């Protein structure tokens, strides 16, 4: 146990098994962004996956929306210590988008409009674990929260769920993305409190 803080009692002690260590619950939806919010017209929007062979798989907005759309209800956990339970999203599973992608590489760099990047192992994007999400709480995704579309990888800290997603590039090695080069953990499992490198 650490140093006792004289006079500090804190909130209720109800153990919540759904709350990862060091997190607190919020009803808000706080915003963490490194720079200005980019403005992206869905008419110009495009998402792509590029592999080591140079093959590029592309979807424009209408093509994305014509794919099978899934409803996702999930808890999310931000490295700045807030967690939000039962958030509801709609989007396209990465399993669908990777269905025709042929790659031997095991890592992915996600690239966003505005220049943000984040690295993720491919296995963390597949088997029903990740989506390209474009609706939150029944509404089009707000630009502040990553609209028109963001990556949604709820089992990792939320900085991995890149806002304003533009594309995925397969990588041979787990090279660090933006926050990962700026002091954050290379993987970011909230249950292991992998906040900082």
């Amino acid at each position, binding site marked *: 146990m650490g*140093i006792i803080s004289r006079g*500090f009692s*804190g909130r209720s002690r109800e153990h919540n098994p759904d709350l990862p260590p060091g997190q607190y619950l919020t009803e808000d939806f*706080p915003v963490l962004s*490194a720079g200005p919010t980019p403005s992206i017209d869905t008419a110009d929007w495009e998402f792509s996956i590029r592999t080591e062979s140079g093959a590029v798989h592309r979807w424009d907005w209408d093509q994305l929306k014509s794919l099978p759309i899934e409803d996702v209800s999930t808890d999310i956990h931000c490295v700045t210590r807030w967690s939000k339970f039962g958030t509801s999203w709609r989007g396209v599973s990465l399993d669908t988008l990777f269905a025709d992608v042929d790659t031997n590489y095991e890592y992915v760099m996600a690239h966003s409009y505005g220049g943000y990047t984040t690295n993720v192992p491919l296995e963390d994007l597949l088997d029903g674990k990740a989506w390209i999400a474009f609706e939150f709480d029944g509404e089009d995704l707000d630009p502040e929260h990553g609209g028109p579309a963001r990556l949604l990888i709820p089992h990792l800290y939320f900085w991995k769920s890149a806002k304003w997603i533009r594309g995925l590039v397969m990588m041979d090695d787990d090279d660090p993305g933006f926050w990962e080069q700026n002091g954050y953990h290379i993987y970011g499992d909230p249950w292991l409190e992998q906040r900082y490198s």
Partner: protein
Amino acid sequence: MTDTDKPSVWKVGVVAETRTETASGRSIVLDVPGWGGNIAGQHADVRLTAPDGYTAVRSYSVASAGSGDRVQLAVDRLPTGEVSPYLVDDLIVGDQLEIRGPLGGWFVWRPEIDGIEQTGPVQLIGGGSGIVPLVAMIRSHAASDSTAPFKLLYSVRTPDDAFFRSELAEPSRGLDVTWAYTRRAPDGWARPAGRLTRADLEARTFPANLSPAVFVCGPTGFVETVANSLVELGHDPARIKTERFGGQ
């Protein structure tokens, strides 16, 4: 650096000084053996522990910069907060708390990089307690006798809501400070009270053609508005670094 001095390791800080900054905020100076200094703009995690072992951790920007084991935080009380009311209302000189850091390598300003003095203009724009990391940059600028032109635009509700008011009232050399009041301005103040507009930014900040490094920190809505206006005014989004707090 020994293992126990690493930023990721919890250290014990002793409160050396507290100062009331506003009706809801105060600054806290801690002596933290092993801290070893920080870059202006970095933050720290603070951990409180209740007698039964329950802990709560929050991140706060560091107002101090440079070498040494003295750390200054400045904290605004959130009405429904768990940690900030304790830090603002209960903590007294001599108390111990746990702290780790410095953390973060993005929202920072360095007087020199790889031995080269940074001389480019720097525009700081703060809202409320969002001034804290910007004050660290201002102090780093002054302490290093930097020749980089600095401008601060500081938006607060009323004159009583300004953190570091007396320090910012007498700006150091090379620093230009503009105040903006959103609810109540001092008597005789030329600009009527109101939120920052694009016209304010155009009139009172470095123009885009000077390619300033821009740091914007404050509540989410404030940062969104300011950063969007700056982009509209021609600033390269890649030159604008933001730090937001609070939900919506």
